[in-house]
């Protein structure tokens, strides 16, 4: 009982301390751009409850759909590429170059090619988030254990079953690593895609506050983004623990950290 209590206490100790320090340090602030934390917290409710359905929910929806698209595309392309070394060698320089293009720099390109609607925003998210998934899937598929692959061949396991039972399962730790990196990228791109040529969304709202000099509201939006990112990473941790339960158990048995 006390062990878990201590763990919780440890988890909230430093954040709580920092929050309190920020509150106290900023309380008498007269700086226009760094208002007292008190005002920011007070602005939270009135700012976001009317905007929840019109700005925040669509943003989260686009994030989820874009992220899902990136995962599907990354795994869908990564599996065949992982299994064909020559194709991989041919595409490697092109993929390296494409990966190095900063997604925010591609936003103007996407605006030209796909207009300014939801499709463009989803494509921006996918274009950046696909890379960690793709590259990690390729690595994971490449590293499938030879013994297991031979065993499958002996037992005549091919096609979709082989994909599901051998390839995907063996590559899943790597794929999940890629998915985790892709999540933080997806959040960043969701915000960026809404800062250009948008009229709704969390990113748009924050920029609009900044342009209208509504500073406490702007900061509340920044904090909300942080909370969103944090909630997503916790949610992902839960997902990872369930999906990779077998893998973590295996490593524990083997004594790996």
């Amino acid at each position: 009982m006390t062990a878990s209590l201590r763990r919780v206490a440890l988890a909230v100790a430093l954040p709580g301390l920092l929050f309190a320090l920020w509150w106290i340090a900023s309380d008498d602030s007269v700086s226009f751009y760094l208002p007292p934390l008190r005002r920011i917290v007070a602005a939270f409710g009135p700012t976001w409850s009317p905007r929840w359905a019109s700005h925040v929910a669509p943003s989260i929806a686009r994030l989820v759909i874009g992220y899902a698209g990136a995962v599907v595309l990354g795994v869908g392309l990564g599996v065949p590429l992982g299994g064909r070394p020559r194709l991989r060698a041919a595409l490697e320089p092109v993929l390296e170059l494409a990966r190095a293009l900063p997604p925010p720099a591609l936003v103007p390109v996407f605006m030209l090619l796909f207009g300014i609607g939801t499709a463009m925003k989803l494509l921006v998210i996918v274009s950046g988030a696909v890379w960690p998934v793709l590259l990690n899937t390729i690595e994971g598929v490449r590293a499938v254990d030879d013994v297991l692959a031979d065993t499958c061949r002996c037992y005549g396991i091919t096609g979709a079953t082989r994909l599901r039972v051998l390839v995907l399962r063996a590559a899943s730790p790597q794929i999940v690593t890629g998915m985790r990196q892709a999540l933080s990228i997806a959040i960043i791109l969701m915000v960026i895609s809404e800062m250009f040529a948008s009229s709704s969304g969390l990113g748009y709202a924050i920029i609009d506050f900044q342009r209208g000099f509504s500073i406490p509201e702007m900061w509340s939006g920044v904090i909300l983004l942080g909370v969103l990112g944090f909630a997503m990473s916790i949610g992902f941790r839960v997902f990872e623990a369930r999906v990779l339960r077998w893998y973590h158990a295996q490593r524990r048995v083997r004594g790996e950290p």
Partner: protein
Amino acid sequence: MRRQILLWTCAVAALLASCSKPKSEGAGSEAKAPPKGAAEPAAGGPTKLTVAAIAIVDVAPLYLGNQKGFFAEQNLDLKIQNTQGGAESVPGVVSGQFQFAFANMISLLLGHAKGLPLKVVAAGNFSTGKAEDFGGIIIPAGSAVKAMKDLEGKTLAVNQINNIGGVTVRAAMRKAGGDPDKIKFIEIPFPQMPGALGEKRVDAAWVVEPFLTVARGQGATVLDWNFADTAPTLMIAAYFTTRDYAQGNPDVVKRFTAAINKSLSYAAEHPDEARAILLTYTKIEKPTADKLNLPLWTPEINRASVGVLADLMVQDKLVTAKPDVDALLQ
């Protein structure tokens, strides 16, 4: 035991220091900003000033006056800095990065309403108040929209919804008897509006020169001159500084205002030279520069029109209470 405590304190301090680095830098940069009186000359030399302005048609008098030496006449050494908009130049003036800047009235009223100590020193530019204004609502060729009321339920592109574009479009809609809330506004940067209109990605757009001329060259027609519908001789933008700077450097402000006013009158009387100077600081091409509608330039600040804008801001819920126009223009 002591070493543990020491280590803990060091770690917390380091974490705090690194976390607060950007914030303290920010507060420091505001405090350390060149003191408001730093623009005064050392000994009889011209006063060095930095003016922030967006590289658009509206500020042609500034460039023209500088070229003609009106600022040098007033013993001012002007450096014109390109900015992207009021959202950037207002904080820049407040922090002392720029001594003066050009911004539209809505941005200034918003900042003023939120408590920023801004002070208008000279007029910027005006709507011509009649047809062939320097900004208007355009529709693509072959559009089904025939009157302002038809815009209900349609998409309309503006560069910023909660700024002068959105406010004046809504005012024009109300004047035509339509419901502005039924317009679907979309924010697109000006340069992309002609393309978006041509591709029928939006049903209408509010543009200013030179994009108005560009779009009309591609077949778009003007549906309405919304600046004229909002108020007669609407003052669109102004040159401003902070109240502290104005109080600390009244002479500099007087000289700057005199130079700007002379530039405004000169540009109004010599439109060809204004068109010519556009080619030097913007990427506008000569054929477009020759055809576009110039804004109205005059040194007389139109207080009444600023009052109209302030009322509209309350009506459009940009602010909760009407901003004190006199305090800003005083």
